[in-house]
């Protein structure tokens, strides 16, 4: 699992203020998501591409991620033209719904544009700093703690599961479509849960020993806000508002 692949870099977006990136992103992404027409969606996409360029993201990895994340929109892009109804036109003798085709295309543009913006704006920060940013923006201490702890233990649990899976493989387990396979996977997952459970009790102990009594005080990073951050934030806000108005009224 290659986590936080995009969080390392020297671009202005990597160095930017997490709080402003979060605020901007949390306005820009929903605005992009609900835009009803091609014209505005393409402008949004252009801005996302611009952000990607500013963030100097490794293109190969970005495309990899997009491909993996596109299953759902590709499913719609393929099924909608065949199922949407309305005026059909023929492609190789197959009746294709024009409205369905256009809607599928719009969805593909939006999905990918939003993912680019998501990577460029938030992927360029670490989960830890995003957690603290969300906390500073009003997300409760408990939810922040939950988020940061579950992030921390994803890798421990994944390794644990893989260790068990390897052990099963060494003993000749080869998965197939049968009850034995499913039962074995159930046991492997159950064992992972038992180990995680035990570990969570020990970690809780460690926290109590260091004075934890339910109040969570995250260590905040000193914020460094540059003019670039403010320009970026205002730009995102303006673009979101103007394009939303144009989309629904224009």
């Amino acid at each position, binding site marked *: 699992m290659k986590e936080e692949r995009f969080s390392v870099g020297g671009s202005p977006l990597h160095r930017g203020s997490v709080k402003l990136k979060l605020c901007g992103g949390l306005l820009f992404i929903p605005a992009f998501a609900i835009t009803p027409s091609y014209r505005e969606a393409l402008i949004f996409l252009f801005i996302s591409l611009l952000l990607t360029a500013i963030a100097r993201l490794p293109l190969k990895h970005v495309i990899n991620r997009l491909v993996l994340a596109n299953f759902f929109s590709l499913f719609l892009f393929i099924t909608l033209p065949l199922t949407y109804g309305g005026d059909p036109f023929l492609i190789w003798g197959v009746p294709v719904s024009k409205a369905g085709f256009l809607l599928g295309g719009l969805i593909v543009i939006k999905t990918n544009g939003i993912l680019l913006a998501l990577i460029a704006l938030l992927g360029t920060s670490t989960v830890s700093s995003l957690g603290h940013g969300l906390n500073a923006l009003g997300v409760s201490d408990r939810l922040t703690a939950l988020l940061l702890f579950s992030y921390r233990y994803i890798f421990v649990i994944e390794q644990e599961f893989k260790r068990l899976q390897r052990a099963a493989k060494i003993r000749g387990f080869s998965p197939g479509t049968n009850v034995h396979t499913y039962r074995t996977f159930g046991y492997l997952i159950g064992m992972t849960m038992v180990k995680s459970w035990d570990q969570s009790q020990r970690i809780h*102990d460690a926290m109590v020993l260091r*004075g934890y009594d339910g109040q969570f005080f995250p260590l905040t990073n000193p914020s460094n806000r540059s003019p670039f951050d403010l320009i970026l934030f205002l730009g995102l806000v303006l673009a979101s508002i103007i394009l939303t108005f144009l989309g629904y009224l224009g």
Partner: protein
Amino acid sequence: MSTLLNLDNVCFSYPHCQPILNNCNFSIGDQRIGLIGSNGSGKTTLLKILVGLLKPQQGRLFHQGSEVTSERDYRKLRKNLGFLFQNSNDQLFSPTVIEDIAFGPLNMGLTQDQARERSLQILKKLDILSLQDQITHRLSGGEKKLVALATVLVMNPRLLLLDEPTNNLDPETREKLTAILRDLEIARIIISHDWDFLTETTDELYSIEHGHLHQCKDGHVHVHQHVHEHGDKPHHHS
């Protein structure tokens, strides 16, 4: 010497098992104690009772002369103790090193700046300042151990409880840990099977057998890992 902790006739057993501590008496002030005993003899259980992670089923625990009963007493007691777990993965739960170290000081009511300042000091002291912004789960086993020690030391404990600190450490980190603990002037109980390490970092030796705690009378047995046949066991040179 003033006594910090005192166990009075403490018994403890896990469900469906033989008693693991049986009328156990023990006190510690500012000594540097090594604790040995076979696997499952109750060494870790003893440490857990001292910090209140387990409660004695019989007998009493005293902290600076007064009995520890309520959760509030335990909280006060824990402020004086620093417990280093066997497995650092159980102890380091924050995303980055500096956050993990600042967790304790922040709980003690220090401000953000004070907590950061103090955490950086301790990192500097242990010579791992460069790790401050690292992601905890990506550290090596040795680095994790040193960071875990930093999370404990940053609380300024009066007594350190270390559970097999040199287990699975590379020789280099082991050396480093030995030097750090040798030079620290904090009382300690160290569980270990690593004789050389105990000789360097403790002055007295205790062992647990059949639920009882004994001091090995001849002071610290002379132990080191050398080439003759008793090199891995405690022995006396004639």
